């Protein structure tokens, strides 16, 4: 019996085209299961937004993709290499092909902005030609990276503590992009920023993609960001709200289709309405 094509998945299952792939990924912290049997493939050049409510395992999923967290069971394949069998130096080399923008920027507060952006150039175990440049050339790259995220050169000597949240995020972005990575992971890039700065970050993510054709995965619960930036949306749902055999991925498809998704839980999320959840509040 011919099955209908999987309309909600726009992943190309040609193995060679997948940059990142997870198979039957499970993650537990003690008794608490966070991820259950996640099988996802992400192609070269895609921009995927992972959405879902807080605590559904989005950030955990993102961190397992580059081996920052080890899955309880299952595989993560990066460029067809299983992260689980790689040694620490091999993993480090592989990670230097990726950039990670952290939720709170995670800039090194003992270093200046310039040193932060130059950090991957100076210290990573990357094979990139950029790490072999002279110090002067590298400084030019740092200045250029700072210009690309729209910041003045006067901030180069400042420390992260002197910058606003939006500026820190932009420095984090510049640092993640300086080695021209193949994959950039964004953990809640616009959370806690005002709408204008959020949109600037969105634009920067889109530009970095146009310029370098990077693959991007962003974790967000900002639907505006997801709709604007992503060409594929993946919605995760907390395990404790699911039945035993239900998939944790409620939606997987392009942003245009999410409006037509019939699952009420997806609609509830994208409309931002608590609905029946209000009944769970213990109001006496």
């Amino acid at each position, binding site marked *: 019996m011919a099955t209908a094509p999987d309309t909600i998945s726009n992943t190309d299952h040609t193995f060679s085209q997948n940059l990142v792939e997870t198979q039957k990924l499970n993650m537990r912290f003690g008794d608490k299961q966070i991820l259950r049997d996640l099988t996802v493939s992400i192609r070269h050049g895609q921009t995927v937004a992972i959405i879902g409510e807080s605590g559904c395992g989005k950030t955990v999923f993102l961190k397992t993709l580059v081996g920052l967290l080890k899955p309880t069971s299952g595989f993560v394949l990066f460029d067809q290499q299983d992260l689980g069998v790689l040694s620490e130096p091999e993993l480090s080399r592989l990670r*230097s092909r990726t950039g990670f923008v952290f939720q709170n920027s*995670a800039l090194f507060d003992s270093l200046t902005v310039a040193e932060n952006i130059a950090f991957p150039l100076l210290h990573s175990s990357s094979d990139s030609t950029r790490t072999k440049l002279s110090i002067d050339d590298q400084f030019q790259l740092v200045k250029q990276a700072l210009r690309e995220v729209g910041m003045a050169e006067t901030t180069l000597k400042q420390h992260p503590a002197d910058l606003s949240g939006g500026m820190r995020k932009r420095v984090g972005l510049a640092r993640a992009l300086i080695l021209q990575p193949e994959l950039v992971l964004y953990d809640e890039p616009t959370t806690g920023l005002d709408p204008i700065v959020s949109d600037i970050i969105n634009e920067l993510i889109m530009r970095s993609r146009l310029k370098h054709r990077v693959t991007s995965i962003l974790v967000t619960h900002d639907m505006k960001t997801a709709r604007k930036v992503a060409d594929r949306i993946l919605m995760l749902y907390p395990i404790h709200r699911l039945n035993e055999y239900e998939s944790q991925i409620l939606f997987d498809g392009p942003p245009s289709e999410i409006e037509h998704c019939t699952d009420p839980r997806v609609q509830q999320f994208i409309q931002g309405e608590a609905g029946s959840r209000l009944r769970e509040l213990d109001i006496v």
Partner: protein
Amino acid sequence: MLRTLITEVFTPWTEKMASIPDLQKTRKNVEVAHAPSFLTSVFQQLDRVTFVIGDLTLFVFQIIAWGCRLKLRQGTFVKAAYQIGVLSLPVVGLTGMFIGMVLAVQSFFQFSQIGMESRMGAVINLTLVRELGPVLAATMLAGRVGSAMAAELGTMRVTEQIDALKSMGVNPIHFLVVPRVFAALLLIPVLTLMADFMGIVGGFAYSHYILHIDAHQYFDFSRQYVTGFDLLAGIIKSLFFGGCIAVVSCYFGFHSNRGAQGVGNAATAAFVTSFVLILVMDLFVGISLDKLYYYFNPAGASLF
């Protein structure tokens, strides 16, 4: 008066509290959790201690592996060395001097009773170079630098800076821990020598200028009984202490829990654990070194 206060104020209040179902539930839960819990909590604690010992051992292996593998990260090393060496020197010197003087005060009475106050120098200096110098320098280092290391690395863990290092292909143990351990190993002998020296100066100054003990006799007996091996034993001990402080502090910082309280707990745990380990190691390394000394030199040197 008291009765009316109890009946009018407390009784209605306690009844009101008891009528809230959630509170009852909580109280019941607390009782249930506590009743059979003594043995369980002992086992839980044992379980945790065993886990920490195992995890710490693995951490040490990783430090050794990364320490041997690649060149040292100079930036982190210089900063740590400045913290450990330069900034700790004054306080170690000061406390060392006072300990020397305290030893003189405490031993004078006992020694003068048996008419042997001229031999005080031997006791004071031997105690200093073998025991108090290294332990004092290590304690100051654990308090001044160890807890700061734990707090710094803990904050880096909490603010995802350690994850950021990893994500850029930099091993955090190689980058953050190895230079700190090397700096501690390299500089704690210097701090120990400083504590020894200032202690000797303090002890002598008090004995000579205040207790009026003859300087020639003071140093002559010292020279007779305090051997190079005693000094060396103190320095060898200090290497163990320095390594222990850096490893333990970095370990607790690395495994800090989230939030300000998590970082605070990491700093406290780093100091308390380092201090306990310093004293435990002091005993065992001391015994081992003595055994070694008497093995090669059966006649030994005795004080009297």
